[in-house]
């Protein structure tokens, strides 16, 4: 049943696939990101985050599946997508001979809408000198410039590929400042990829864990924290676990200690756990986001 009152999602990926020779870097990815939300894509290096974002922006050919951004099929009309999406890449390749002011003028000429006031404010905030050439800019300045030209056209969707990797803490804070100001516009959807938990915890409403080209987790961040719990139980001598909760994502038995992480914990799991297994001393622990992700990855590795 189609709900015509609900606006289409900002991003809709269906079975998105990318292969490099025998290796499948992105494996049938399905993802829907509603408008106005902030989505964090996390995963180890090589998980396929950059590749996914580049396919979405029409910069990499799609091997299978489709990517629909702001209602537009990227393969069919990449120009329409680029006019409405601001993108900040991980590796910057802005013309090194241009001056900062020239870069802004150059980019500005391609957009129908440009918030000159915001641009001037950010230029000030980031302490960028319009006369400096791009090749004279430090990595941090370059990142800030890239962010400036990405948000000044007031795009409906902002895509950031590992935006803060390699930035020193002071520049990181300035960059984060710029991103947060952009996020205050509630109409804007933000999609960013990162391999640091800090960014996800701070910025994301919803998080997706990408591992070997597949989405292992897709959940609101707070839900993940409150619903994922680790259970620690002590097994009786010579006995192995017999029954696991349905949403177990990882488990390990070491000596008499049985650790298991459950994706959707509720108190009524415990009586059954105690009943079906020969255990005593059952304890429930909270997990940090980092632990949650690690356990999902460990669980996947174990299953492979």
């Amino acid at each position, binding site marked *: 049943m189609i709900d015509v009152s609900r606006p289409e999602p900002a991003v809709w990926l269906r079975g998105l696939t990318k292969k490099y020779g025998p290796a499948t870097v992105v494996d049938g990815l399905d993802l829907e990101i509603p408008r106005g*939300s*902030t989505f964090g894509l996390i995963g180890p290096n090589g998980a396929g985050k950059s590749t996914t974002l580049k396919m979405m922006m029409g910069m990499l050919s799609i091997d299978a599946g489709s990517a629909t951004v702001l209602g537009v099929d990227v393969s069919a009309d990449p120009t329409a997508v680029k006019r409405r999406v601001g993108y900040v890449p991980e590796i910057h390749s802005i013309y090194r001979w241009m001056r900062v002011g020239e870069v802004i003028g150059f980019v500005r000429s391609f957009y129908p809408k440009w918030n000159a006031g915001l641009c001037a404010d950010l230029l000030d905030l980031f302490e960028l000198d319009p006369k400096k050439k791009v090749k004279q800019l430090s990595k941090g300045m370059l990142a800030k410039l890239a962010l400036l030209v990405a948000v000044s056209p007031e795009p409906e969707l902002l895509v950031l590929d590992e935006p803060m990797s390699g930035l020193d803490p002071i520049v990181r*804070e300035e960059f*984060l*400042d710029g991103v*947060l*100001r952009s*996020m*205050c516009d*509630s109409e804007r959807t933000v999609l960013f990829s990162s391999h640091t*938990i*800090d960014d996800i*915890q*701070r*910025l*994301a*409403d919803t998080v997706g864990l990408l591992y070997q080209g597949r989405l292992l987790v897709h959940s609101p*961040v*707070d839900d993940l*924290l*409150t619903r994922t719990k680790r259970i620690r139980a002590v097994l009786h001598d010579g006995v192995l676990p017999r029954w696991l909760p349905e949403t177990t994502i990882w488990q390990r038995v070491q000596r008499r200690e049985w650790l298991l992480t459950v994706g959707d914990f509720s108190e009524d799991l415990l009586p059954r756990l105690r009943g079906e297994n020969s255990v005593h*001393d059952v*304890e429930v622990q*909270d*997990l*940090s*986001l*980092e*632990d949650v992700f690690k356990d999902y990855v460990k669980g996947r590795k174990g299953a492979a």
Partner: protein
Amino acid sequence: MRIDPKSHVPVFRQIVEGLQSAIAAGIYRSGEVLPSVRVLAIDLQVNPNTVQRAYEELERQEVIEARRGVGKFVARNGPRSALGQAEVAVREAFERGVDLACDADLSKTRIRELFNDVLSQQTEASRAQR
């Protein structure tokens, strides 16, 4: 108030608890205006949505009230409600501590000894800070 992104407590809850303590302690008094969502988000370096949700929760707890077009203010009974909520959080922390102690098979007497120890140690430390 600082956010610990490594904690297992969701950020929005950290903000709620942080503001509860601040209001209970009198940093924000009844009727005073609170920072806007945008300002607080940039200050704490977190998603504005999260700050918005924290404010909504505090509104639900009747610690703060929102006046449309003007901003968020500490409710008349705000400090009292905040104290109540703060007590709930403290109680939960105590519960976790006692659970830990029981797991290690400590006796009730020993637990009380440890508690008194910590209490005098912490109050000494905060007195030295002032």
